[in-house]
């Protein structure tokens, strides 16, 4: 505090002003700090004479703008002055040491000097610099590229609510997918699952409006599909349980992509009809851009509308099943329960499930199902590019002594 004040600041405004002066570089403060405080004192006195109460508050905006406009440039001025002075000292025959410049100047000067030395070093040996730059660019670039892939796939959590409770249910070959009665059994009997939903893929003709008719991919999903994944709609709502019943009104949820592309992101689309396979379906929702389950090629979702009173035959396997486990239920215990259910089928329907083709659950946690097989390869890839970076660094480190050797021999 004693660095530049010959007299104490008077009053709260001057004290604040004095504190703010620290934004200026030290040498500037030492030279002008007192004078500036006096300037402020005079200015404050005159403003107060005109407006006794509001005066200071009218003055401060001007003062702060002045700080904003001048404090940083003053720091730059000081740096340039210091650099100029050190160059004059060199001309005068005395080389300034780093210690010298540390003591005399301050951080920005040092940084600026370092940058100048670096730039001089780089430009004096362009071929060497190019090799080093290229080596490091390749090493760092490859590592960053692979890391961003791994970050997106493995490290960031899946974009669903509580993804650790999500699982995918299939059956061991030759059955593969799940038939309608099997799905109904899972839905009714599995206590370890909070919700189960079935998905079937199909495609349809989308017509209507001024646009060309087009072929679109759609997912037919049973009640609870959206609730299991827990991603909020961009517009509108999910399907209701009633809409999954056989004779319910026909409704549809659009993908973000289709909504953008064909309907021009019409924000009033909810409640309007779109024509699918010649039949009007009312739009009840639009999913957000990041939602692409079960596939990014899906353009729309419609209710599956299974008729539980007259299901298709047990050997007609075509449904994919997803489920959300009840809280605190582990994956293995849930699989054990599902396997217990399939064992009852073998007993009850021997004609469908021959003893040489036992039905067995093939379940996977969502994360494993989506990235499972590629996980070790991805980590191996990351390890490989990390080594590439390491080798690049070693190469550059080897080049540096070689280059300084050349420099020494040339002097």
């Amino acid at each position: 505090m004693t660095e530049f004040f010959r007299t104490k600041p008077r009053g709260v405004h001057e004290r604040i002003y004095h504190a703010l002066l620290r934004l200026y570089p030290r040498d500037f403060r030492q030279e002008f700090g007192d004078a500036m405080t006096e300037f402020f004192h005079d200015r404050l006195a005159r403003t107060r004479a005109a407006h006794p109460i509001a005066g200071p508050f009218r003055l401060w905006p001007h003062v702060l703008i002045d700080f904003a406009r001048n404090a940083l440039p003053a720091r730059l001025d000081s740096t340039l002055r210091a650099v100029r002075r050190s160059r004059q000292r060199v001309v005068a025959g005395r080389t300034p040491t780093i210690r010298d410049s540390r003591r005399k100047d301050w951080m920005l000067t040092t940084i600026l000097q370092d940058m100048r030395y670096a730039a001089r070093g780089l430009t004096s040996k362009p071929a060497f610099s190019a090799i080093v730059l290229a080596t490091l660019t390749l090493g760092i670039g490859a590592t960053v590229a692979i890391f961003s892939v791994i970050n997106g796939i493995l490290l960031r959590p899946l974009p669903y609510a509580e993804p650790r409770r999500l699982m995918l249910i299939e059956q061991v070959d030759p059955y593969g997918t799940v038939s309608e009665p099997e799905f109904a059994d899972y839905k009714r009997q599995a206590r370890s699952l909070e919700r189960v939903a079935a998905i079937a893929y199909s495609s349809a003709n989308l017509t209507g409006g001024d646009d060309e008719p087009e072929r679109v991919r759609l997912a037919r999903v049973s009640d609870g599909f959206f609730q299991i994944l827990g991603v909020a709609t961009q517009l509108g709502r999910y399907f209701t349980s009633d809409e999954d019943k056989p004779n319910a009104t026909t409704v549809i949820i659009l993908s973000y992509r289709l909504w953008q592309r064909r309907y021009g992101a019409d924000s009033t689309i909810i409640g309007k009809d779109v024509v699918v396979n010649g039949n009007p379906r009312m739009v009840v929702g639009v999913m957000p851009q990041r939602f692409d389950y079960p596939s990014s090629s899906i353009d729309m979702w419609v209710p599956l509308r299974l008729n539980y009173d007259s299901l298709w035959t047990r050997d007609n396997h075509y449904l994919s099943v997803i489920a959300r486990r009840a809280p605190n239920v582990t994956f293995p215990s849930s699989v054990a329960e599902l396997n217990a259910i399939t064992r009852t089928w073998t007993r009850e329907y021997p004609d469908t499930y021959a003893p040489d083709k036992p039905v067995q659950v093939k379940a996977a946690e969502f994360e494993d199902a989506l990235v499972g097989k590629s996980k070790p390869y991805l980590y191996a890839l990351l390890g490989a590019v990390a080594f590439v970076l390491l080798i690049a660094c070693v190469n550059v480190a080897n080049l540096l002594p070689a280059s300084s050797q050349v420099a020494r021999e040339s002097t």
Partner: protein
Amino acid sequence: MAGTPTRAERDIPESRTPLRPIDFLILLMLARSGDRHGYGIMQDVAEHTSGSIELEAGSLYRTIRRLQDDRLLEESSRRPAADLDDERRRYYRLTLFGKRVLAAEAARLRRLVRIAESARILAPEPAR
């Protein structure tokens, strides 16, 4: 370094023109009133520009420092009577070189005004 004027070249007043408008004003005010402190310079500038230029401390002292570095003005050791003074104040005055640069700039501006008059942009001022 090529392009950097030598000391001798820098000492020619014309080599320092044109001055920045604010530099010109400050030097001019000092030429009129002799030794002034920062706040006084600000008041003089405001008065002679009908209040359109009101310098703040930061702008003013950065300019003063620059003009000092360019040897156009210097700190004055002469101080007014103690009862009128505050020890925190700093007083400044033109250097001899500053006066010559100021004159060179004024002459340059006069030449420009003459051109403006001959081009009928400006009515010639009646002789006083």
